[in-house]
C-alpha cells in the first residue's frame, strides 16, 4: 500500500508543479518574459488561500482569492517594469520573488513568520475519510487539465500569436501597431494567476506552509522543467514537471537504500538536476518536445 500512496503523492505534486510549469511556460516560452520570480505568485496563492480558509472561508473562495491576489501582484510588478528590456526585467522578477518570501518571513502577525502556517484545512475532508489523497489527486488532475486547456486556447488565439511576435521581435511588434507593454502585462498577469492556483492547491495539500517552501530554488526548478520539457510547448511543460518532480521526490528515499546522509543527498539531488539541465542545454536545447509549428488548414 505504501508504494501506491507514494505514487499518489508523486502524481499530486506533478499536477501542482505542472500548473506552475504551464504558467511559467506561457510567460517564458510563449511571451518571452524572463520571469525568475515565479515562486512569488505561488507563495501568494498559497498564503492567501491558507489564511482565508483558516479564518473560516470556504475552499473555493480561498482558491479564487489566491489566484486574484497573485494576478494583482503580477499586475503591480509589471506595470512600471513592462517597458524594461528582458535582462532588467529578469532582475526585477528575482527581486519580486524574494520580497514576497521575506515579507511572510518577517511579518509574524500575519502568518506566523518563520514558523509557518499549520493545520491548513483540507477541502471536503469529511466527505472522504478513507481515501482522501485519491480525491486530491483527481482535483489536482482536474486543475492541471483546466490550466492546460486555458493555455492551449490562449496560445492558439490571435492574442497568443501577438505574444509570440513580441517574444521574437519586439520592435517589429510595435511597428505593426501592437501595444507591446500591454501584452507583456497580460502575459505576466495570466501566468501569475495560474501560479496562484498552484499555490492554493499546494497549501491545502501539504496543510503546512512556511517561507522555507518558497525559496528562489523553486523558481529554478520550474525553469528546469520547461527547459527540459520544451519551451513553448504545453505538453513539454507537463513532461518536464513529471520528470523533475518524480526525480526530486523519489531520490528522497534513496537514503533508505544507500548509506548517504540526508543532507548530502539533498545537495546531490540538486546536483543531479543541474547536471540534467546542462546536458539538455548542450545536446537538446529545444527540450523533449519542441514548440509546435502552427499550420493552418485551408478550406
Amino acid at each position: 500500500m505504501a508504494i501506491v500512496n507514494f505514487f499518489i503523492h508523486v502524481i499530486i505534486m506533478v499536477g501542482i508543479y505542472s500548473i506552475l510549469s504551464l504558467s511559467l511556460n506561457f510567460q517564458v516560452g510563449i511571451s518571452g518574459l524572463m520571469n525568475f520570480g515565479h515562486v512569488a505568485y505561488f507563495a501568494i496563492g498559497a498564503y492567501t488561500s491558507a489564511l482565508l480558509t483558516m479564518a473560516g472561508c470556504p475552499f473555493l473562495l480561498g482558491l479564487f482569492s489566491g489566484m486574484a491576489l497573485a494576478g494583482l501582484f503580477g499586475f503591480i510588478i509589471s506595470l512600471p517594469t513592462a517597458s524594461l528590456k528582458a535582462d532588467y526585467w529578469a532582475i526585477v522578477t528575482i527581486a519580486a520573488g524574494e520580497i514576497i518570501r521575506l515579507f511572510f518571513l518577517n511579518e509574524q502577525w500575519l502568518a506566523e513568520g518563520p514558523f509557518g502556517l499549520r493545520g491548513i484545512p483540507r477541502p471536503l475532508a469529511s466527505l472522504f475519510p478513507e481515501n482522501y489523497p485519491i480525491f486530491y489527486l483527481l482535483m489536482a488532475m482536474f486543475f492541471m487539465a483546466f490550466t492546460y486547456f486555458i493555455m492551449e486556447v490562449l496560445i492558439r488565439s490571435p492574442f497568443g500569436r501577438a505574444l509570440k511576435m513580441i517574444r521574437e521581435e519586439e520592435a517589429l511588434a510595435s511597428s505593426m501597431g501592437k501595444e507591446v507593454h500591454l501584452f507583456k502585462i497580460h502575459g505576466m498577469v495570466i501566468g501569475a494567476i495560474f501560479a496562484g492556483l498552484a499555490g492554493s492547491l499546494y497549501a491545502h495539500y501539504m496543510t503546512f506552509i512556511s517561507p522555507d517552501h518558497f525559496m528562489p530554488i523553486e523558481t529554478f526548478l520550474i525553469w528546469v522543467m520547461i527547459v527540459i520539457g520544451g519551451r513553448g510547448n504545453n505538453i513539454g511543460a507537463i513532461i518536464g514537471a513529471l520528470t523533475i518532480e518524480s526525480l526530486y521526490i523519489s531520490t528522497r528515499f534513496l537514503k533508505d537504500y544507500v548509506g548517504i546522509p540526508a543532507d548530502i543527498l539533498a545537495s546531490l539531488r540538486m546536483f543531479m538536476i543541474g547536471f540534467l539541465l546542462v546536458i539538455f542545454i548542450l545536446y537538446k536545447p529545444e527540450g523533449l518536445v519542441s514548440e509546435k509549428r502552427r499550420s493552418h488548414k485551408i478550406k
Partner: protein
Amino acid sequence: MLSVKEVYKSFDALMALKAINLRVEENSITGLIGPDGSGKTTLFNVLSGFYSKDAGQIFFKEERIDGLPPHEIAKKGILRTFQITVVPKRMTVLENMLLAPFGQVGEKAWRVFLTPGVIRRQEEENIKKALRILDDLGLENLKDEYSGNLSGGQQKLLSLGRALMADPEVILLDEPTAGVNPTLTRKLLGFLRELRERGRTLVIVEHDMNVISSLCDIVYVLNNGEVIAVGSPEEIQRDKRVIEAYLGGRKDAHS
C-alpha cells in the same frame, strides 16, 4: 499626404537630421537616397515613431503625428519595414501575415473565451486575404514554413506582404531590394508599381540608382543629415552636388 517640416534630430554631438523638409504626395513613390550615414534610416525612425525628433513637425493628412509612439503611428496607417529584415523566426509565413491586421478582436485575452465565433470569422477572412497576398508575392507554397528558414530575399517579400495585410496608406520601405537576387528584384519592383496603381503611397530608401530611376516619381537626396536635392530621378542624376556627394562623380553614374 505626409509632410515633414524643419525636423531636427541629433545624437549627442552628431547632427543626424538638419532642418529636413519633405512632402510625400498621395499615390506616389518617393525615393530617399544618400550615402551611408546621411540620415535616411534615422528619418524613417523618426517618421515611424521609433526616435523622437528634437524639433520640427510631422503631419499625416493634416494631423500632427510626431511624438506618437510607434504602435499609434502604425494604426494611423503608416507602416514601415526594416533595413535588416526582421521576421519572427519561429513563426510560420502565414502566422507572420496574420499578425498584421489591426482591430483583431482575438488579440484581447478575455475575448478569446467570450466571443470565439467572432474571432473565428475574422481569422477566416484574414487567412483568405493573406493567401491572396502571398500568392501575389509568390510565397504561397511556403505558407507553413518557419519564416526564419526563408532566404533573405523571401524575407524581404514577406515583410512587405505583412505590411500590406494591415492595409496601410503609406508604406516606408527601408532598402527593399538589398540582398534580393535580380529575378526577385524585378518581380518586387513590378509589385511596388502595382501598389502605386492601386492607390498606395510608398517611401523607399534605396542605394541602387537603377531601382530609384525605374520606380520613383520624386527623389530626395540626403547628405550629412540635410536634403541637398529634390527632383525627378533624371534631374537628380544631373545635379552636380548629388554627383559629388553620392554618385561619386563617376561618369557612368547614370548609365
